[in-house]
Structures are given as structure tokens and as C-alpha cells.
């Protein structure tokens, strides 16, 4: 197959698992003999070496920038949201030019927020090209969000007019998109996230020297629950436990976490380790017993707990999140309430030997490497893409017409937002 993949960000420029997942699938498609070109936005900081099949020619109306969320004039923010989600004529121009040049069999969309995603989907459909979108976040509802929430008529129109299908990583993310006002359910195929690591199938030791070692990886922030992990450690210490260590890996943007550690006199037990390269982190998981991951209920399906589990570092996740619909409590991970009490209780049970951690750890490794390895998941994605190529239709418009329409749409949206202000 000849494929154009489109993603707002692409490693090394990225925010997390979505872009990493995109690159892993692109690599797998290349290895399977398909011709894939990735179209993405200019990086947010310089990148020295890049892959040959990569075109960083789009522009990003960065919806993740702090100014897009809470700075500047409200009308400026609304215009930014419209460019990010609805229509960006410049990106349509670049996109259709690449489609014309490369003549792909299908377009494989990833995260389109920031690129004027709806206009790229519309352009693809007008050219009669089949498409699939991989969803690891509530992207369709983000695209339809022009004013801080999704207007119901826009959400319904999006769901009615799309002709492609979505690979969704969880029911949780589909439900969130639906509850945001974009009922795409019937167009979704659920495909879980994956690991690419070889894991630690030979791992045999847990709780070495009767010491519990806990890892946390991701943005050290409130939404990932770093505060919950630190507070749980403080509870352990207050309860008189001393043989435990908590290491938090990831960028620390808020000094409050070190302050929390200092205030609870946890310096001996809790350390902010900073960011580590992914492969280094994978190896390090083998030295840890538990992976504390108190993420938010809306978490679609995080990669980090999967990678930790593949190395025998047993995830502890909240009862409610996307990961919880794929893994079994007490079988290949642990689930608990998303509170410091809940996490501390579980840590205590492990330290006191009430839980057979080695048994769960071995099962986690087996499970991940068998059912969640990319080697297992990729054929389903490849089959879905192959199926899509049969959906080609005659073009409804020329590339010139599409660009004119995009210019018209971008101006109309801008005028409407000005009138509404």
C-alpha cells in the first residue's frame, strides 16, 4: 500500500504516547513493505536529524500552548481553536499538493488537532480517497470544538458526513467523544495500544532484600497524579514503613512536588529523577516492583503502564481509566481508588506479603508480550488499512476547487466568530 500518514506532531517533537505510537506504526508499515510518507507540522524546536519519509511542511496552530488555553484575547483564542480544529487553508493547500504528487492508496490520520483537521478530512473525502484515523485521544470532539465546547449540530454533522473509520484504543475514549457531542461510535473499531519492547520474560525477582521499589513515569504533574504517589509514600512513612523507594521519572515543571517531598521529609524515600530516554527507562523497570500510575479517569489508554508491565514492573492503576478495560485486577496489574489512601493501602499489602507480587509480575510479562505486543496488534491494523483501500470513490472536486473551498471556509469561520463576539 502507498500511504500518507498525517500527524500534528512527530517524534522527536511530541507530547507523549500518541506521536510515539504513530512512529511505531509507520516503522511497522515500512517493515511490512508498505510505502509510507508522514506529513506533519514544522517542529516546535529545531530537529537535527530526521527520517527520509518525513515532510514537516504543515503549520501547527498549537492548541497545547498555554496561550491557546488561557492567554490572550478570547476572540484570538477562538480563532486559534478554529484554525486548530476546523479549517486551515494553508495546510489544505500543502496537503492536497502532496496527495496529488504521491497518489496514495489511502490517508492514515493520527492526531489532527492543530492542523485544521476537519478541512484535511473533507479534502480527502472530496478527492474520493479512503481514510482511517487512529484515535488515542478525544480528537474528533477537539476538532469540533470552536468555542470551548462542541456545538451539537457540528458534532452531529461531523459524525454524519464522515466516510472513513476510526481505530480507537478504548471504549473509554469513544464514550468521551460521544459525551462531548460527537457520536462516532458506529464508525469505530477498537484496537488496543501496544508495546514494542522485548520485555523481561526471564525476570524472576521481586521485592529484592524485602524492599519495595516503586516507579512513576510521565509528566510529574497533578493530572498524572504525582501528588497522590508522594502522599501515599508519606502515609507509608507515617505508618512506620522504611523499606521502600519511590522514583519519579519525567519532566518536572512544578516545584510543588519537591516541596511536598521536603515537607514530609521523604528525601530518603522519594526522588524526582528527571527525564530518561525511553529505552533506558524500559531497562530500569526491571529494577522496580510496582509502577504507580494514578492517572485521570479520562485517560484513553496509556502506553507507559504497558511498557512497565512487560518488564515485570506491575502497574497500579485507578479502577476507572482506559487501561482498566484491558487489564485484570490482581491478575496482571492492580487497581485501586485514585487517592493517596488507596495507593498507600495497596503498597502496604505488598510490603506485608498479603499479595503474591511475583505471580502477578510473571503473568503481567506473559500477558503483555503475548497479547499486547505490536507483533500481535499490527496485523489487525494492517488488515483495516487494506480494507480501506477498497473504499476509493470518484473525486468530487479538483485540488484547485478544494483549496478555494478551504479559503472560503476559513474566512467564513473567522467572520462568524467575529460576528458572534
Amino acid at each position, binding site marked *: 500500500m502507498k500511504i500518507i500518514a498525517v500527524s500534528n506532531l512527530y517524534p522527536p517533537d511530541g507530547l507523549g504516547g500518541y506521536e510515539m505510537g504513530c512512529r511505531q506504526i509507520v516503522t511497522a508499515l515500512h517493515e511490512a513493505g508498505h510505502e509510507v510518507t508522514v506529513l506533519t507540522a514544522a517542529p516546535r524546536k529545531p530537529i537535527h536529524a530526521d527520517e527520509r519519509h518525513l515532510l514537516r511542511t504543515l503549520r501547527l496552530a498549537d492548541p497545547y500552548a498555554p496561550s491557546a488555553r488561557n492567554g490572550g484575547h478570547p476572540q484570538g483564542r477562538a480563532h486559534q481553536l478554529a484554525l486548530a480544529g476546523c479549517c486551515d487553508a494553508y495546510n489544505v493547500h500543502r496537503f492536497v499538493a502532496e496527495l496529488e504528487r504521491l497518489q496514495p492508496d489511502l490517508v492514515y490520520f493520527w492526531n489532527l488537532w492543530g492542523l485544521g483537521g476537519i478541512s484535511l478530512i473533507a479534502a480527502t473525502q472530496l478527492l474520493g480517497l479512503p481514510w482511517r484515523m487512529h484515535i488515542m485521544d478525544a480528537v474528533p470532539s477537539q476538532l469540533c470544538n470552536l468555542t470551548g465546547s462542541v456545538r451539537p449540530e457540528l458534532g452531529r454533522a461531523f459524525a454524519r458526513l464522515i466516510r472513513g473509520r476510526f481505530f480507537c484504543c478504548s*471504549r*473509554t475514549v469513544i464514550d468521551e467523544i460521544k459525551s462531548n457531542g460527537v457520536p462516532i461510535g458506529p464508525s469505530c473499531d*477498537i484496537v488496543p495500544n501496544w508495546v514494542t519492547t522485548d520485555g523481561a520474560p526471564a525476570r524472576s525477582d521481586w521485592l529484592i532484600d524485602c524492599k519495595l521499589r516503586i516507579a512513576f513515569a510521565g509528566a510529574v504533574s497533578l493530572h498524572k497524579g504525582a501528588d497522590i504517589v508522594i502522599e501515599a509514600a508519606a502515609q507509608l512513612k507515617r505508618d512506620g514503613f522504611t523499606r521502600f523507594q519511590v522514583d519519579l521519572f519525567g519532566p518536572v515543571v512544578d516545584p510543588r512536588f519537591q516541596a511536598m517531598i521536603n515537607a514530609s521529609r521523604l528525601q530518603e524515600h522519594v526522588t524526582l529523577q528527571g527525564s530518561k530516554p525511553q529505552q533506558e527507562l524500559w531497562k530500569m523497570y526491571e529494577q522496580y516492583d510496582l509502577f504507580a500510575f494514578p492517572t485521570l479517569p479520562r485517560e484513553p489508554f496509556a502506553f507507559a503502564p504497558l511498557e512497565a508491565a512487560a518488564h515485570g514492573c506491575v502497574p497500579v492503576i485507578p*479502577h*476507572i481509566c482506559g487501561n*482498566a*478495560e*484491558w*487489564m*485484570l*485486577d490482581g491478575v496482571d496489574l492492580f*487497581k485501586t481508588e485514585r487517592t493517596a489512601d488507596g495507593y498507600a493501602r495497596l503498597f502496604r499489602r505488598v510490603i506485608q506479603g498479603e499479595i503474591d507480587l511475583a505471580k502477578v509480575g510473571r503473568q503481567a510479562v506473559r500477558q503483555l508480550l503475548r*497479547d499486547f505486543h505490536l507483533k500481535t496488534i499490527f496485523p489487525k491494523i494492517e488488515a483495516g488499512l487494506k480494507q480501506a483501500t477498497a473504499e476509493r470513490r470518484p473525486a468530487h472536486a479538483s485540488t484547485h476547487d478544494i483549496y478555494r473551498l478551504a479559503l472560503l471556509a476559513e474566512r467564513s469561520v473567522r467572520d462568524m466568530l467575529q460576528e458572534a463576539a
Partner: protein
Amino acid sequence: MNPSGINIFESERPSLGHRLLRKLLKPLLLRIQAAVDELATYQRRQAAELQELSDKLQALKLEHTAAVRRLARFEELYGKLPTQASDSQRGDHAE
């Protein structure tokens, strides 16, 4: 404030009738206020309990989904279990 717009509790020169009414109504109003407060507390507690039950239900649904998917994967690898109930009895998810 009564329907006529005169606040019988704050009136600068309350008449005898107003004073009598105030004496009669104040304890009643205090009891009503206490009952309203109690009802609000009850509703808050009910809402919290409902939220807790809803969270438990959601957690069970996710665990059930995980189990159904695990079973489906098991069957994909090793074939159907000989003693298991039919899909309809098991309440399989259509996805």
C-alpha cells in the same frame, strides 16, 4: 418578607399585629430553615453515595469488559472452552 413586601422582622415600627406574627412565625421559620438545611445535607450525602455507587458500577463494567476481552483472546488462541456458557448467556459485548 411577606407577600405585601413588608419585612415583619425588620420593620422599623412594627404594629402589634406584626409583633404577634413575628413571635408566632419566627420559631416556625427557624424550624423550616433547619429542615431545609437537613434536606440539603441529605441530598449532598445522597449525591455522594450515588457518585460512589456510579464509580463502583463503572469500575465493575471496565473489569467485566477486560474479562470478556481476555476470554475472547483465550478462545482465539486455544479455541472455545468446552464447558463454557454460550455467548448470549455470558452477556458478551458487541464492539
